[in-house]
């Protein structure tokens, strides 16, 4: 049932929202207390961080929904090789998205003095919201025709 529309869409969105909340509020609260800031206020930094997290989550959700849509069509069951290419491409796209988001934050915060450790924590959050989330969501909620395509599913 979880793999059928609209349950898989709704559950994926809910999971994404929960994850964003945990990372934006939980990890955000920690980062707000530890990052050194020269120009911006703590609230400005957290606002930027949460917005970037929100943008990558929206893109990751869009990617998941596209996969579910594709997987629910008859052509997917007939052309599994093509479907696998789409999934791998999406996964790699999410990896690129996480790196681009990180670089964006690095550029916007270059005057602030954040440490490597700070950016590593941010990248961990971006990773969880992009390729890790995409992988986990598609692993658990892909339509039946393509449920065995995500890596790790047997």
């Amino acid at each position, binding site marked *: 049932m979880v793999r059928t529309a609209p349950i898989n869409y709704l559950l994926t969105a809910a999971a994404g929202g*929960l994850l964003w909340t945990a990372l934006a509020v939980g990890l955000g609260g920690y980062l707000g207390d530890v990052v050194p800031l020269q120009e911006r206020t703590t*609230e400005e930094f957290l606002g930027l961080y949460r917005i970037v997290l929100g943008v990558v989550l929206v893109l990751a959700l869009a990617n998941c929904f596209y996969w579910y849509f594709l997987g629910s069509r008859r052509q997917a069951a007939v052309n599994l090789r093509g479907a696998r290419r789409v999934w791998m491409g999406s996964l790699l796209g999410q990896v690129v998205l996480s790196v681009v988001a990180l670089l964006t934050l690095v550029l916007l915060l270059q005057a602030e003095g954040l440490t490597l450790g700070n950016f590593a924590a941010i990248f961990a959050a971006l990773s969880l919201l992009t390729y890790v989330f995409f992988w986990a969501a598609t692993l658990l909620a892909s339509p039946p025709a393509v449920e065995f395509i995500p890596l790790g599913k047997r």
Partner: protein
Amino acid sequence: MPPRRAFCLLASAVILLSGCSKPRVDSVEFPDDASRAVLGTIQTGDSLRVSVYVDGTVSMAGFLSGGTSHYVDFLDDLESTVQNSIRRAEVRYFKFGRTVRELDRGGFRGAREPAFYAERGISEVTQIDSVIQCPAGAHVAVVVTDLFQDEGDVQAVVGRIKDRCFGRGAAVGVLAVPSQFDGMVYDARVPAYRYASSAERASYRPFYALLFGAPEHVERLHQALRAQPYVEQGHFTLVSPYVVREFDVQLAKSKDSRHLNRRDEKRPRHFRFDVRKGGDGGTLTADVTVRLKPSAPDYRPERVELVAFRREGAADSARTEDVTLRSVRRSGEVLNATLELRAPDQPGSYAYRVSLVTGPLDGFASPAWVRTLSSPNPTATDGPNKTLNLERFVSDLRRAASSVHAPELARWYMDVRKL
């Protein structure tokens, strides 16, 4: 893992993670009284009582100058000026010298005649300290005199004013009105000499109206008196606990303070900072714009001091050295100050009230007009129309007022979280 179980696990992890963020400690704040503390009371109401004390000693007779002088004009216009400017004004008149006596209106009009200044029992000695009083409420005492005093007199008068006025939060206005003069100048360090002014304004000899009362009422009365053309704006100085007309504060941290983070301001003049773990504070830069009241003397920036109080929890506030002034530089109306913040070792939330105050001893410069009209030793040939020890009197007044309550130039608040 079944998707449903995975989802439940994720939800639990989210709730746990979110709950792990540190609970915000309730911030403790000072009540915002910056406007009242720095600017004083603005509103005054529409009524005012004015008690006018006219110096009836022989030294004042010269100001009559044959009946046409600014002194005579001042006396003639005083009541009408007050009545026209203040909706409900009540004026009473007194004559003083050795003693004090109340006058009716007819008696007050006698001040335009030479005989007024020859009354036995009054005209011999100017005991100005007998009329020094700072009445409470909407009431101003105006003492019209030539203010000629030796060092002993200055000390005694200033001491009396400090006790009766500054100690109650009152103010003193010193209004100088250059006037035509033709008569004898007494009480100088030399024998009495004759002096007569010419048509040149620079030759006029000033008489003074000392205004005593609550700062807002003294200023209000001065505003009313300014309506007269012979009362010049630039010849008035206000010795008051409040010298600022408006102020603004911008506070930022210096770039090298890596353990100090700024947080958003919630309200004007309320600044918030976090001191991160491993640090104890940092350097702050304050740009303070101070616009003085037109009648206040200018302050000396090198004498400006910083006073800080700290509050934590529900406890009362206490003076603290957590915030100190490292340097201050003035550029026109702007004071650029560098401050050091050293938060306590214990993590927690701390509220600070920070004030920039004028130096209690020598915080103000003498107004230029005071220096121009003053002389340590006027004689018939050297500064005959100047006032003996005027500068000493005004500076001693200002020092006495500041010793009771040093005027503040600015006040702001800081909330600091030590993490």
